[in-house]
């Protein structure tokens, strides 16, 4: 069971370069352009030990492209930049928003990307964790 959807490189498929110098006759002109195949694990995940996935419920981030049902790739090891989209834990649930930190005011602002929602202002005394930065959004279109 454990390897079913865990994020690791065991599923990667590497196609070796063709060794066309060993082949007699005229080499195919295309071999120069052969590339390793695309491995989504490698493209989408930079720190496999820190990468987790989560599923979005709701549409407060729809203008940033995050829709209900999308799966987010979350990297816990990426440093939070101002305005990064991050998964946070606030008052008993995980939420996803753009995060703005105001050190002087000792406040964190969670900005939605949907005009029907309001900015959440997190005060010092609230139970709040920045859980990880959202690096990719996976959307099912078919």
């Amino acid at each position: 069971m454990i390897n079913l959807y865990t994020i690791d490189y065991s599923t990667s498929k590497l196609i070796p370069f063709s060794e066309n110098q060993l082949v007699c006759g005229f080499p195919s002109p295309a071999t120069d352009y052969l590339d390793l195949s695309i491995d989504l694990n490698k493209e989408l995940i930079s720190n496999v030990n820190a990468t987790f996935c989560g599923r979005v419920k709701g549409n407060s981030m729809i203008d940033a492209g995050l829709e209900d049902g999308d799966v987010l790739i979350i990297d816990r090891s990426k440093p939070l930049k101002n305005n990064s989209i991050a998964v946070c834990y606030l008052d008993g649930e995980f939420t996803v928003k753009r995060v703005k930190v105001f050190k002087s005011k000792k406040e964190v602002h969670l900005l939605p990307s949907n005009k029907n929602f309001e900015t959440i202002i997190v005060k010092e005394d609230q139970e709040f964790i920045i859980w990880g930065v959202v690096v990719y959004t996976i959307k099912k279109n078919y």
Partner: protein
Amino acid sequence: MYALIDCNNFYASCERVFNPSLNGKPIVILSNNDGCIIARSNEAKELGIDMGGAYYMIEKDLKKHNVIAFSSNYTLYGDLSQRVMNTLAEFTPEIEVYSIDESFLNFEGFELIGGLNNIGKNIKATVFRNTGIPVSVGFAPTKTLAKLANRIAKKNKSYNGVCVLDSNEKIMDSLRIIKIGDVWGVGRQFEALLNNNNVYTAYDFINLPEDWVKSNLSVVGLRMQKELKGIKCISLELTTDAKKNICTSRSFGRYLTDKSIIGEAMSNFASRCALKLRKDKTVCSVIQIILYTNRFKLDQPQYFANKTIHLDVPTNNTIEIINYALKALDLVYRDGYRYMKCGVIVSGIVPENRIQQNMFDNIDRSKHSKVNNILDTLNNRYGADVLKVGSLGVAKQWNLKAEKLSKCYSTRWNDLITIIAM
């Protein structure tokens, strides 16, 4: 220098990563089948909840103190453990994974570039950032002392989770405060014997004459004494020895009386043994099954059966091993008992390329090995047990009781954390 890195309350910490509302609350983890308590958070320890306590006996007590209980979720713990260990392996080339939540790391030579304490802090921060799991770090010249340093780092808040024993003075100071029973490798009998000889701390122990230690505690005790003095006797085990036997056994979720359902469980365990053998590229020549009633229910009729089958030709073939396990079950099964546990143990393990052939062998081994290859390939690609032998069954009525199981947040597509965007 060696480092021992140990995850703090590992199982409880794993549950908290995906459920931060559990932070600061007392939680306990139950053994397979929700039998007894096998792990506690600090808060649960402070409430005086004992390790090993039977859950059904203290369930009410736990509720009263708002202690939250979880069935053990080894899929989740295993995945997080792997992430922690992989992260640790980035710090030094030599790592010995000692258990699901502890590793020894070799930092020989690193003291020259300075600041083991800083390296320790960095390890702690990196593991937490990557995985959300808090760890404690102990550095010392020997493994036994590293274990001890870790204990100090964990118990004393002032160390902030990192303790470096890098001078004789620091080592002696810490030996004075550690009870001999808390030293790595000291069991109850050792402790009692030493207490009888007025040895109470690790410091008392290193001051015993070596002759006395050797004659009373054998070479094991002597090695321990040297390690505590800072003389390296135990090195890292970087390769794991081939297994001598593989055992798959479980308690059932409820009492079973029906032979066909027990056979289903037996087939599953046999199949798991065969898979492990193939992963290790080994074969077994002995298959043993066990079938037990519940020995704690004294009012019920008791029966403890085991049957061993020696094979003419060693195998790692799923169909064959299941076949023998079921034959053995046929031989020992008796009506009228309520069975609680069964299992399959394979031994006589040798590498698969060293099989002694048998002239009278009538099994088509090349055909079986093709079947196994297809089985393994498909199950690797599409998930465990996508393809399986019919006797494994579908309903799994014998399955473990795990009523308080958390989700496999990090390994299953359907169990991902839900992120509210509302």
